[in-house]
């Protein structure tokens, strides 16, 4: 009887035990939250009046994350390939880019690019610049994931590919990418979740995405918790499905070799 709460490969836990564990933890979590927040949550009515602000901020966050995802994937792939280039200047530039971006805080990058670079270039569209900064930031991380995935394909596979007469582009297309994608997908999904959360820092340049919306509601209503609790939930609604999807991908690719 005591073994039903253990999940082992040769003796999986029964479904009802899984559900019971999940429900108990959720109920306990909810109880703790209620107790902690009981004293501070009261002003829901005034926050509810600003629901439109929350919604438009949330939608803008989705827009920023979605566009940044596509741009950073393209940029990340290009940087990963540059990182593997035999042409030394190109490779060095890629290394410098990756190390600079990954070695400095996103907040500093946002402030620097908005107040220094964008100002100098005459770029005034916050959304455009924000998406650009976030994409450049995320691309550095994606580039390293993609590079690791490419390098996980063994030397003998590359030799087989050359032996049948494929040219380099075809080797990438038919041999490297299909195998690398298995390695890349799970961390890629994690990076996407980070991208959504990282977009909150764009609030510092006055881009009225989800976090700035919550801050605005907070200053208008003086109800800090009531403003930031929906914020946390709003991000969770976006990131939880992604981590579930990531787990699904891990499962799917684990058995298929």
């Amino acid at each position, binding site marked *: 009887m005591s073994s039903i709460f253990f999940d082992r490969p040769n003796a999986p836990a029964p479904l009802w035990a899984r559900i019971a564990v999940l429900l108990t933890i959720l109920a306990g979590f909810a109880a703790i939250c209620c107790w902690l927040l009981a004293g501070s949550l009261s002003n829901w009515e005034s926050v509810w009046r600003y629901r439109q602000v929350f919604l438009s901020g949330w939608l803008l966050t989705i827009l920023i994350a979605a566009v940044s995802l596509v741009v950073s994937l393209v940029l990340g792939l290009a940087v990963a390939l540059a990182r593997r280039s035999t042409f030394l200047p190109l490779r060095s530039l890629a290394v410098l880019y990756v190390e600079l971006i990954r070695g400095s805080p996103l907040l500093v990058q946002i402030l620097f690019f908005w107040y220094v670079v964008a100002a100098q270039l005459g770029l005034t569209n916050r959304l455009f610049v924000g998406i650009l900064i976030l994409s450049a930031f995320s691309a550095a991380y994606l580039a390293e994931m993609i590079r690791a995935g490419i390098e996980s394909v063994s030397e003998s596979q590359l030799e*087989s590919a050359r*032996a*049948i*007469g494929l040219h380099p582009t*075809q080797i990438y297309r038919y041999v490297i990418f299909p*195998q690398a994608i*298995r390695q890349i997908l799970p961390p890629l999904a994690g990076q996407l979740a980070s991208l959504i959360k990282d977009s909150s820092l764009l609030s510092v340049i006055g881009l009225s995405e989800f976090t700035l919306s919550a801050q605005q509601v907070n200053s208008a209503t003086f109800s800090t918790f009531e403003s930031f609790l929906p914020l946390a939930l709003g991000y969770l609604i976006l990131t939880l499905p992604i981590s579930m999807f990531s787990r699904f991908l891990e499962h799917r690719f684990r058995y298929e*070799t």
Partner: protein
Amino acid sequence: MKLEFQNVSVAFGSHMVIDRLSLTLEFSRTLALIGPSGGGKSTLLRLIAGLITPTAGKILIDGSPLPDSESDLRTHRSALGIVFQAYNLFPHLSALENVRLPLTAVHRLSLAEASSRAMEILDRFRLGSHAHKKPAALSGGQRQRVAIARAVAPDPGLLLLDEPTSALDPEMTAEVLDLLAELHTTGRRLILATHEMGFGRTIADQVAFVANGRVIQWGPPEEIFSERSSPEIQGFLSRILRY
């Protein structure tokens, strides 16, 4: 078929694998390369295959020199069939897709044509029922037979095999050797690096003994596997045939 090596050297970094090799090998159908591991059999095959280029010197096949540029070497490779010791197949593709890939991507056959040619060869190799399996679902012997099918499918003028049975157990080895013997009887030209002395002796018309990056001796199998061969070969054969 005539293979000429003119002052060929191969160095990996500072390590000289083949040092100024000059020789002419002639064989009609099958050439077997034998000798100790690390002696240079694989390097010779890779040179002939155009997978590596010599650091110095020239290689001629039937009188025409191997090209220098990578794109010409690619054309050269696509006219050959090459099979390695193991890990030949692409794990994300089924047996059929593995055989079909060079036909569509390199030899520009339509998908339908390539599929029917690939299926025909898999059937001939008694692999038809495994056509849609991924390599992970095949036995070692089946995998190697699919690899041979992939190499043979474009109908190459010459098949190069680098120890195709070294990673296999005796039963799977027999399965692959049967297939090679069949290819041999249908008249396909083979160059084979092998540790299967009995097999090399039966199907090869010429045998070359390769050790320390040199071809110590070559000739018909009756000669190489006899008392008339060099002391190095005698020593090698007595070592591997001791048990």
